[in-house]
């Protein structure tokens, strides 16, 4: 297939940036979206131009490094996939594809399509952990039985890959699905309950300080999340937060 690409180019954080048009030809429908960009970049390098910078690493949908807002959706039009798992068979010959970085004040652009998501890390520093040392002398794993449904729900919350699609898709650039997932994972497990109060207060405080918007429950995040993290996690965080705020 032959495609027209409209790609955000921005030299560095201080540059203004603009959309630039490119053409790629002979794209196979079996290619992944990033492989299509590889083809473009190979073309650009051979012409002596600067390739388009984009984040990517594992290319199997689990590291959460790839981003991209493709034709108006985080990770493109397919569901339940990251950009690296998006295949060109989702597009048609002659299509024009818009490719933009994830946009949010808390995700400043570094270059072209690469954004800085360290705000996510800082939220985790504030409380995304259980305070146990790795002494090797903790109690036997089976001494902490966990109800299977809770364990499954905790796992579902923990499948979040931290890509930021929720923030990018949210009209308010809210990070509540991301934070809600982590809060939920620990809130559902007996090991996590001990610090639950401080954890949710600290993580939400940090989230607010990073400049993310507020949640207005549009549900866009859940739809665009490559791992299908449920809105239930936001509701759970709200509950956890309110009861923690009333307590402390």
């Amino acid at each position, binding site marked *: 297939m032959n495609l027209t690409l*409209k790609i*955000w180019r921005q030299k560095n954080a201080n540059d203004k940036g603009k*959309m630039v048009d490119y053409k790629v030809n002979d794209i196979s429908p079996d290619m992944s979206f990033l492989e299509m960009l590889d083809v473009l970049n190979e073309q650009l390098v051979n012409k002596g131009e600067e390739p388009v910078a984009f984040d990517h690493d594992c290319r199997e949908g689990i590291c959460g490094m790839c981003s991209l*807002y493709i*034709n*108006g*959706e985080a990770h493109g*039009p397919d569901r339940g996939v990251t950009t690296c798992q998006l295949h060109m068979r989702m597009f048609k010959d002659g299509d024009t594809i*818009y490719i*933009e970085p994830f*946009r*949010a*004040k*808390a995700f400043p652009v570094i270059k072209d399509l690469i954004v800085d998501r360290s705000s996510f890390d800082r939220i985790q520093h504030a409380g995304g952990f259980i305070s146990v040392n790795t002494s090797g002398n903790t109690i036997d794993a089976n001494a902490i039985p966990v109800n299977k449904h809770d364990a499954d729900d905790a796992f579902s919350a923990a499948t979040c890959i931290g890509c930021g699609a929720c923030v990018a*898709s949210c*009209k*308010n*650039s*809210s990070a*509540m699905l991301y934070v809600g997932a982590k809060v939920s994972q620990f809130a559902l497990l007996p090991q996590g309950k001990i610090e639950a109060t401080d954890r949710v207060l600290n993580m*939400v*405080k940090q*989230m*607010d300080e990073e*400049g*993310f*918007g*507020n*949640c*207005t*429950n*549009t*549900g*866009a995040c859940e*739809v*665009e999340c490559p791992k299908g993290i449920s*809105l*239930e996690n*936001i*509701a*759970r*965080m*709200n*509950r*956890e*937060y*309110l009861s923690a*705020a*009333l307590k402390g």
Partner: protein
Amino acid sequence: MSGILNSSIGRKFAMALSALFLMIFLLQHFTINLLSVFSEDTFNSVSHFMGTFWLVQYVFQPILIFGVIFHFVMGFVLEVKNRNARQISYAKNNGSANSSWMSRNMIWSGLAILAFIGLHFYDFWFPEINTKFIQGDMSGLLPNGEYRYFEELQHKFVDVWRVVLYCIAFVFLALHLLHGFSSAFQSTGANNKYTKGLQGFGKAYAIIIPLGFVFIALFHYFNH
């Protein structure tokens, strides 16, 4: 507890609480209005009771006004903050792929409702306040000795344009409620096995109540 309103979740919780309060008020308002369709007398006596009973006038009414103002002010504050959270907008954004129009445009449906409330106050509330508290006429009676409430109501729905405006406003109210009802519950943290049922109920509420108001307006327009 202090500072809870400075946090994002605290704010959205407050937004949800005020919304739930307003939805209860709306139900009450609707119920009384509906009486006007069935019985002029009942409507008049209930209206008079509401308009003169001290608890309603001096306690509930200020709370309601506060609730309305709070909901609007907080709505605008959050909207401004949320807009600030993304400084460069997307060249192409396909919002309809992942969310409803209603959920993305609460600010516009809200503004339409605010404009309507202005009109509604102009029509009913200001004259009411004028009669009762400036002219000091707490009798609720017309010169002919009958209650004035039903009469005033019918009088307002003579003008076709007013009726049209009211109907449009109710459409916006429906749009606002279609997202707002379930959103309020989600914000308060209620997301459990009842959520699906609640969402269904919310949809019904969001459609039936505004539709009922439209019906009442049209009823009086055609029956005056």
